[in-house]
């Protein structure tokens, strides 16, 4: 019997591509936001509302879905550049898929890239894409306990958006309990309450994005 010590990270290949993606984004001053949520939390609708506050030539969206290009069509209908990645069953995006999407896209003039990950609160959290920030979106209709049921994604996030605030009274959402759960897994994580329907919280979220863009521009100089 012989034993060979390996000590190699399982996701080393993904992480190497993510580092290359990150270098590319830094060189080009592109702030990259990876949006993560369960299916139906309102990612795409929130993104549509967000885009109304942004300038089309400076923004691009990469959409990740198991099937169909419906989301990319919705974004393109608003006049923004959109690339659809169809994973054909894959439960998450990885760094290689992002690299390939970038290679096929025109990123000239882009300073903000949204990556809308596959709707899933587990797997996407484990894969570095080369983004600056993971932003987790959960909604009041999903209940208060999502942060403690899916801690990794909340742990990894730089920001938490609590969507569907307009429905909070209907579903008797306990916001204090939600805040406690978020901060148990990620002490100090900023939470912005939003509603894609009424526009609540959109200015604060857009302001946060603007800071992320400014930070990236400063870093790229």
């Amino acid at each position, binding site marked *: 019997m012989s*034993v*060979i010590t390996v000590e190699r990270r399982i996701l080393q290949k993904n992480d190497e591509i993510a580092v290359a993606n990150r270098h590319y984004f830094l060189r080009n001053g592109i702030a990259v936001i990876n949006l993560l949520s369960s299916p139906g939390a309102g990612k795409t609708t929130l993104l549509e509302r967000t885009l109304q506050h942004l300038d089309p030539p400076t923004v691009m969206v990469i959409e990740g879905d198991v099937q169909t290009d419906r989301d990319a069509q919705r974004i393109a209908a608003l006049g923004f550049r959109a690339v659809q990645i169809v994973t054909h069953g894959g439960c998450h995006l990885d760094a290689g898929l992002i690299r390939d999407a970038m290679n096929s896209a025109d990123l000239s003039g882009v300073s903000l890239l949204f990556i809308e990950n596959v709707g899933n609160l587990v797997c996407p959290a484990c894969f570095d894409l080369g983004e600056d920030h993971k932003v987790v979106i959960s909604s009041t209709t999903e209940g208060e306990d999502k942060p*403690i049921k899916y801690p990794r994604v909340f742990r990894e996030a730089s920001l938490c958006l609590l969507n569907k605030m307009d429905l909070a009274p209907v579903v008797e959402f306990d916001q204090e309990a939600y805040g406690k759960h978020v901060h*148990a897994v990620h002490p*100090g994580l900023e939470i912005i309450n939003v509603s894609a329907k009424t526009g609540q919280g959109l200015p604060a979220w857009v302001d946060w994005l603007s800071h992320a863009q400014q930070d990236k521009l400063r870093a790229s100089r």
Partner: protein
Amino acid sequence: MHELSLAREIVAIVDEIMLQHPEKSLKCVRVKVGELNPLIPDQLQSCYEALIADSKLVGSRLEIIRIPVRAQCRKCARDFRLEQFSFCCPHCESTGLDINSGDELMVSEVEF
């Protein structure tokens, strides 16, 4: 199911090692998985077994070593095992922690 993606990466890493030892037959692959990683060990096992069925890795077993999450409190300096993803010191309730283990996701060793 990201277990399949992880199993593919494990097999790719082991394949590379096997190239350097073509005369040997693989018995076991040991992987370390920290508890911060959401992963179902049985699914990782099943994926590994399915992937090696027709390869030179056939007959080898995958041994998954779970690594607990351990943290040290920056305030009271005590070291403890973190339970239930509650990132708070059980002694002084401070949330300023250094995570010392639990994030591992690696092929640790192979046995021939």
